[in-house]
């Protein structure tokens, strides 16, 4: 019997797996399978690992993504985090309690050892447990939020964006320190034996920053994080759930093995155009629509949505069907299962369309 690891490896090497691998990115939603609240799941890596494994067993997806939330990295620098009982933890910066309240506060960003920072240590532990327990069958993808994203969680995107225009030098100084920490964090995650590390590079999106701004304030830094992971023979995957992601820019800076995305890349018209333009350069992971289908839809809607995407992206392999962002933490788990069922029904290689 083909294991999820073998299936994913086949897709990553453009060989035909038994079927299209399914990765509905079940992260926070896994807490409901094991029966714990969000705040517990997000702060206890042993419990989180049990949740991930129970969800994988029940739903049958083909890989773990150890995304907890986007405040893991900023918390290491001292940013306060809010832990709602039943929703995703978030940086208190959004409630006005930001670590960097003024330009002078950028100096608060100091180097920290990722292995001693509570939330980063938990993430490393989570990777370690999943790799040790399930690593021979199910691949674990570590997760890391890029330096610009991390900084915005301590300043807010609006203020950071203005600072990038008006106070460039302080922003660069902080990014340099943050990136040094992220390089060591990537190293620690890779040392657990994860086969792939996912870098979240959200701001490489046409609705957020220009290519030029992105390259100046994230590309030149985060590419060093990618280089560190590659030293450990860890594959680099990118994640960008913004509108019109700059695939060309992302590929040029990071030379990733795969890109996980929600919306068609900048310059592409649709699924087919995306496959045509980028399908041979990077493995495509996506592009199931959370707000339109995965959250409000029925399992039947999800299966039809998957069928459409398997038809467009499946031929020639190099494709993992997945939600464009984390599976909605409060959506019906039957919708996650429907993704796997769709691959069993319509995603068997050779595909009927081939």
């Amino acid at each position, binding site marked *: 019997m083909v294991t999820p690891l073998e299936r994913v490896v086949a897709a990553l090497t453009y060989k035909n797996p038994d079927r299209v691998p399914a990765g509905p990115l079940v992260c926070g939603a896994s807490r409901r399978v094991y029966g714990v609240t969000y705040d517990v799941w997000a702060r206890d890596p042993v419990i989180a690992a049990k949740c991930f494994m129970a969800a994988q067993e029940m739903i049958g997806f083909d890989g773990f993504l150890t995304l907890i939330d986007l405040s893991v990295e900023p918390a290491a620098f001292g940013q306060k985090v809010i832990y*709602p009982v*039943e*929703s*995703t933890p*978030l940086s208190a910066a*959004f*409630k006005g309690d930001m670590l960097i309240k003024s330009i002078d506060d950028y100096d608060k960003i100091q180097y920290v050892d990722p292995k001693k920072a509570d939330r980063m240590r938990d993430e490393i532990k989570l990777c370690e447990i999943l790799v040790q327990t399930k690593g021979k069958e199910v691949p674990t993808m570590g997760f890391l939020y890029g330096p610009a994203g991390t900084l915005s969680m301590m300043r807010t*995107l*609006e203020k950071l*964006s*203005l600072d*990038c*225009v008006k106070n460039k030098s302080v922003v660069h100084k902080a990014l340099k320190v943050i990136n040094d920490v992220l390089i060591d964090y990537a190293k620690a995650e890779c040392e657990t034996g994860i086969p792939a590390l996912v870098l979240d590079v959200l701001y490489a999106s*046409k*609705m*957020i*920053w*220009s290519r030029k*701004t992105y390259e100046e304030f994230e590309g030149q830094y985060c590419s060093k994080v990618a280089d560190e992971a590659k030293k450990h023979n860890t594959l680099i995957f990118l994640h960008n*759930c913004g*509108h*019109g992601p700059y695939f060309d820019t992302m590929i040029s800076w990071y030379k990733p093995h795969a890109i996980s995305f929600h919306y068609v890349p*900048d310059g592409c018209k649709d699924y087919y155009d995306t496959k045509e333009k980028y399908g041979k350069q990077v493995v495509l992971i996506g592009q199931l*629509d*959370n*707000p*339109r*289908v995965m*959250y*409000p*839809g029925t399992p039947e809607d999800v299966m039809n949505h998957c069928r459409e995407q398997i038809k467009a992206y499946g031929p020639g392999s190099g494709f993992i069907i997945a939600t464009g962002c984390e599976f*909605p*933490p*409060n*959506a019906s788990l039957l919708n996650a299962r429907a993704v796997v069922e769709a691959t069993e029904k319509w995603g068997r290689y050779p595909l009927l369309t081939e």
Partner: protein
Amino acid sequence: MSTEEILAGLAKAVIDGDSDKAKELAHKVLEARIDPYKAMMDGCGAGMKIVGEKYQNGEMFIPEILCSAEAMYAVMDILSPHIKVEEIPYTGKVVAGVIEGDIHDIGKNLLVMLLKASGFEVIDLGRDVATKDFVQKAKEERAEIIAMSTLMTTTAPGMKRVIDILFEEGIRDKVKTIIGGAAVSKEFAKTIGADAYGEEVADGIKIIQDLMMAIKRGG
């Protein structure tokens, strides 16, 4: 400088995000005794309209838009005390906010900014807004439209609650609702009975303008 030159200069200063130039021209508006409301709408408003279009077309991005907004607000600070409220033509009133439990507000802030530049009166409730507060404020202000956004599916059900409260208060037919944000969709809007869904900020402006026209026509 002629009136036309000053207004064109204001529009350009806003597009360029040049607050210093915008302030200089705002003072010229007063010196030249140009109607300050006309300067806001035909100068800054015209500039922000182009900013919105450039954002939609991928020619401007969040940092540049925020600089434009700063320039516009700098002009507003100078001109607003000289604008007589009774002389402002009524365009419509919108209550806007991010739904309870969510604090991601950049999309909502861009919407508010562009709505104001389009002449709407906007009551910005901010983020993490209690569902009942949307309805309460719409009642108090006699607003025609409630605009809600969220980036998280865990908070999206709050949007339906706002619509339920409008029914409970007996004013559902008087207030139109529009939703937006990365966690929601046209399909979700239909499910909860919202009047409209805006995928992007520029869509939201156009839809709100259309909703307001429909309201004025009695629709």
